[in-house]
């Protein structure tokens, strides 16, 4: 502290400019320490990423010291939990691929059409009800979707398709599709809504109908946003866990038949961690090798999305 901060009337001081010496050192100190503290907080999210990469890498390397990468990527059997284990991750990739494709076949067309409808056709008042409705669907916990798939959708499908087993990729995929539909619909709608009105009017002026305007002008103009919403949908489908664990079962089979049970990467991770895999065991390491595969897959999707948006993004005033 230097001198008194403010001239006090008691000391007979007058607030003249040469007597007023503000003590700023304390507030400067608090400013600096807050910036440091909050900067450290912001670094937590960076550390999270590094933590994820380090964690996965560490155990994956351990895993590959025991199992050759060639075997991991080319073997066609996945029997990681058996006495004579075989680690053909392609089996799990195939399961993930199957359930995701079924989900995306539902979510992409329905999501895009819903986005078009919300942005272009729905009157404002109706939109104000529909959009929160879809947001509610997005907020439903995935374990609830798992209940829906296993106990409500599968019995209905079994009536329609004879020979459908209790655990099957079809029911999981369908429900997965509805779980990611709101993601695609809401993000695409933002992109479509952001297309300037003048483009639509230009299209009408040359005689296009509303649908022709949408498919020929509006959707291409919103392409980068739509593609990044679809990629986020793909990433969610690939990483979705509870629906596939509950409805698609736990039997790792290399098949593209949607009527039988398959195991995805995520449901394998759940299967192992539900039991008690001791640290350092091969099961424990397998967990991280599969997690790494999943992470790399979503990373590739992410990088593609970044690249695509940067290359194709249209900027409007």
């Amino acid at each position: 502290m230097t001198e008194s901060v403010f001239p006090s009337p008691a000391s007979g001081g007058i607030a003249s400019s040469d007597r007023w010496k503000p003590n700023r050192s304390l507030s400067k100190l608090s400013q600096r320490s807050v910036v440091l503290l909050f900067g450290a907080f912001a670094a937590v999210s960076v550390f999270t990423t590094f933590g994820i990469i380090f964690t996965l890498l560490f155990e994956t390397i351990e895993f590959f010291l025991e199992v050759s990468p060639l075997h991991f990527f080319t073997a066609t059997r996945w029997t990681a939990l058996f006495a004579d284990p075989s680690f053909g991750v392609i089996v799990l990739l195939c399961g993930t691929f199957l359930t995701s494709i079924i989900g995306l076949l539902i979510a992409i067309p329905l999501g895009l059409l819903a986005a078009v409808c919300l942005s272009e056709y729905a009157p404002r008042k109706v939109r104000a009800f529909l959009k929160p409705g879809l947001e509610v669907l997005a907020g439903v916990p995935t374990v609830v979707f798992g209940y829906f798939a296993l106990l409500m959708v599968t019995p209905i499908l079994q009536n329609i398709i004879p020979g459908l087993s209790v655990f099957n990729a079809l029911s999981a995929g369908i429900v997965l599709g509805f779980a990611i539909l709101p993601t695609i619909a809401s993000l695409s709608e933002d992109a479509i809504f952001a297309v300037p009105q003048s483009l639509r009017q230009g299209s009408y002026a040359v005689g296009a109908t509303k649908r022709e305007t949408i498919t020929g002008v509006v959707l291409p103009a919103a392409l980068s946003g739509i593609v990044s919403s679809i990629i986020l949908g793909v990433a969610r489908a690939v990483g979705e866990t509870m629906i596939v664990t509950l409805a698609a079962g736990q039997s790792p089979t290399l098949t593209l038949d949607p009527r039988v049970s398959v195991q995805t990467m995520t449901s394998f991770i759940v299967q192992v961690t539900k039991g008690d895999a001791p640290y350092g065991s091969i099961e424990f390491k397998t967990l991280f090798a599969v997690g790494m595969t999943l992470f790399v897959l979503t990373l590739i999707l992410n990088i593609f999305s970044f690249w695509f948006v940067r290359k194709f993004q249209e900027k409007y005033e």
Partner: protein
Amino acid sequence: MSSQTDKAAQLDSGNFKPELEKRYKIDQIFKTISWIATFSGLVVLAILLIGVLVDGIPSLSLEFLTSPPSRRAAQAGFWPAFVGSICLLLITASVAFPIGVGSGIFLQEFAQNNKFARIVEINISNLAAVPSIIYGLLGLFVFARLLENIPGTGLPLTGGRSILSAGLTLALLILPVIIVATREALKAVPDSIRLAGMALGSTRWQTVRTHVLPQAIPGIMTGTILGLSRAIGETAPIIVVGAAAFVPFAPDISISGFQEPAFTAMPIQIYSWISRPQEEFHSIAASGIIILMLVLFTMNATAVFLRNRFQRSS
């Protein structure tokens, strides 16, 4: 129409064929399909909710909420799972809220456009696409294994596969949501307030603390509650960290209770009931879902209420 007159018409209008009728028909079909697509999601939501209510209401009672789980469906209750979820919520909120809001303030108020801020920004959008089960693996390795004990003493830090480890994992999971919400809320505060604060000689932090933050608080709370409601429904990451399916006692709400290596939560209990073959367990799973959804509904309603009040006042 014969081809000759058609050709004549074509020549007349210089190859221009409006075919309006056909095009309008396609338009109409497209419009109808897009409406059907929009409602398909809502219809599925309605079927799901009605189905859960029909299955779950008969076994729903106060006794169900307050009794411990049992091997027999008729006596099984939800209490340890319910309290477990509340504890998770407490831990997650008390870690994620300060860190998330602090990061948001840092990025929005203190460090616009510097290199570190840009890295953090890219990083946050990257984390949004990482599957939640990967966070579970992170929590299993870092919180449950590396930080199990205080190094060198053998005293428990997280206590291994405990509710504390799970809560910390969920905190990391929802951190990006809170950061983004904080930034949006701060962005909405007009710059004139900052300028006025600084013109009076206060530091940036003083301006933010006394003037900007109070205005942004409702928006921040909304985002935080939405993030927490995501955390409470998450199943996969906490299974991976080590939630157990059968825990007969509710955890103590204390540090040592949070370090207990056996815990459960609502989604975990629901999951374990669904995966049992007996039908009675399926209906109590539905009752559990009703309670979980009621909690979520309450949280979201609070968030919407805050958002609306905030929008009206500004």
